[in-house]
C-alpha cells in the first residue's frame, strides 16, 4: 500500500477517521505532530506515520470571547466563550486543539497540567465536513 504523503491534508483526513497521527523520523526517531515531511533535527526525509494514544495534559489555554465567524456559527460569542489550548501529549509532542468539557466563562477554574484525552469534533456536512482536534479532561 502506498504511504500517505506527510501533508496537512493527510493529517486532516486521519482526524476525520478519528486518528491523531504524527510522523517519526526513521533516521533519528524524532516525533512530529502534526506531521513534518522533513525532520528538523537531522534533516532526514524518511518518515513513518505513527498514531498517538490521544492522552496528554494542558500546557496553556485561552478562553476566547471574540472568535472568527466559523466559531460564531457554532454559537460561541462574548457571553459564551470557547476554549483553545496547547496540549502536551504523552508521547512528548505538543498540539494545539479545542478544549471541551471546561467552562470558558470561568477561566480561573481551568488548570494547567489537567490530564486530557482526545476527542474529534465533526462539523458541517457533505464536502464541507471538517474534523477538528479537541481534548477534554479525562
Amino acid at each position, binding site marked *: 500500500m502506498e504511504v500517505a504523503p506527510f501533508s496537512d491534508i493527510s493529517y486532516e483526513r486521519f482526524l476525520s477517521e478519528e486518528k491523531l497521527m504524527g510522523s517519526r523520523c526513521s533516521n533519528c526517531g524524532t516525533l512530529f505532530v502534526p506531521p513534518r515531511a522533513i525532520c528538523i533535527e537531522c534533516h532526514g526525509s524518511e518518515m513513518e506515520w505513527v498514531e498517538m494514544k490521544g492522552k496528554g495534559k494542558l500546557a496553556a489555554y485561552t478562553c476566547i470571547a471574540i472568535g472568527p465567524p466559523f466559531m460564531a456559527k457554532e454559537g460561541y460569542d462574548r457571553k459564551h466563550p470557547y476554549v*483553545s489550548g496547547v496540549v502536551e501529549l504523552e508521547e512528548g509532542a505538543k498540539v494545539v486543539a*479545542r478544549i471541551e468539557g471546561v467552562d470558558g466563562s470561568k*477561566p480561573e477554574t481551568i488548570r494547567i497540567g489537567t490530564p486530557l484525552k482526545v476527542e474529534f469534533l465533526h462539523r458541517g456536512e457533505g464536502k464541507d465536513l471538517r474534523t477538528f*482536534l479537541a481534548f477534554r479532561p479525562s
Partner: protein
Amino acid sequence: MRGRRKLGRGAAVVGAGMSRFGMFSDKDSKCLFAEAFKEMLSTVDKGVDAKDIDALYLGNFTNDFFVHQGHWGPIISDLLGLTPKPATRTEGACASSALAFREGVFAVASGFYDVVLVGGVEEMSKRNTEEVTQGLAMAASPYEVRAGFTFPGVFGAMATAYFAKYGATREHLMNVTIKSHSNARLNPRAQYNVSIRDIMNQKIEKAEAKGNPLPTWRDEKEFLRDPEANPVVAWPMHLYDCCPISDGASCVLLVAEEIARDFSRNPLYVAGIGQGSGKGLHAKEDLTYFEATRYAAQEAYELSGLKPEDIQIAEVHDCFSIAEIIHLEDLGFFGPGKGYKAVEEGLTRLDGSKPINTSGGLKCKGHPVGATGTGQMVEIWKQLRGEAGERQVSIKDLRIGATQSLGGTGGTCTLTVLERR
C-alpha cells in the same frame, strides 16, 4: 562597524514621519501615506528633493483582503511621483515595514542606492472586529486557526504559560497598560492619548450626565478588574490588554552614511539590524518566549557591538500587554521571568532607567500593522533628537534607541538599533 557582522557601508535615517493613526472612514491608504510622507519631508533638516529618492520599500500586510487591492508598491510610488524608480513591497505580517527598513538598509549598504524611502501603510478599520480578527489570523499557523485561536488567543495562551512558570498574574499585565496610557497622554498623535484615569473620569461624567449610578472604582486597577469596563477578549487578554484596530502610515528616509550630513544636522545611524523567524505555538519548546526575537536581537547586537544594557530607550511590539513583558526579556533588558517585576518597579516608565514605549506603544499610539515598524522609528527619531516634547525622556547623553517588531504569532521578529553620533 564594531561587531562581528558587517554592512558593506553604513546607512542613516535623515527623516521620519507618520500620519495620524486612528479609525478613519474618509481616509484611504494613499491619503494616509501622503500624510506620512509630507511629515517626513518636513523633518529632513537640510531638505531633500523627492526626485533624488532611488527606490521605495513598502510594508503592507492586510490590504489585499481588507480593501481588495494588492500590489501596493507601485501604487504608493506613483502617488509620490517616484515612478519609474523601483518599488518593492515587503510582507511580514505586523512586522512588514520593519522588513522594508531592513531591505532598505541592505540596498544602501550594497552601494547600489544612496537614498531610499522606507515605510508602511495599513487600512483596517473599514471591516468589523470579527473580520479583522479573522484576517489577522491569516498570519498565525494554520493549526492555530483550526483550533479556534485568534491573535489575542495565542498571546492569552502564552500568558497562562508565563503565569504558571513565573508566578505573574493579570495584575502585573495591568501595570503595562497603565504605563502605556500614561505615556500616550503626552503624545498628541496617539490614537488614544488619554490615561486610564482620564477614561475613568470620562465614564463617571457620562454616568452623571445620564443620571446613572456612578462607578465606584478607587483606582486604575479596580477599573481594569471591572468586567463591564474591561471585558474579556481572549482570557487573560482583556480589552485593555489589546492594541486597537487602526489605519495609518509611516515612513523614514534612509541614506548612505557618508552623505547623511548633507541631509540632516542630526542623523540617526543604523547601528544594528536583526531578523529572525519562529515556529507555530505547538512547536515551541517553551511557551514563554519568542525564539525569533532572541535571534533578531543576537544579529543586531552582533552587528552593532552593543549589549542590551547599552540600549537606552526602546519601542517594543506591545500588540498585547503580555507581549511587552516577553519582549523585554527576549531582548535581554531583563532576565527570563524578570520582565513583569521590572515593569512593576517602574523601570520601564518614562522616568525609569529603561523607558519602553514612550509613544504609548501599539496599545495607545495605534497599530496599523504594516505601518508599525517604521512608526516605532518615528518615536525613536524624536526621542534621540530631543524633539519628543512633553514625553521627552531625561536620560543623560541619550544616544542609542531600538525598535522591535513582531509579525504574526512570533513568526517574524526584528530588532533595529539607531544611534546618534
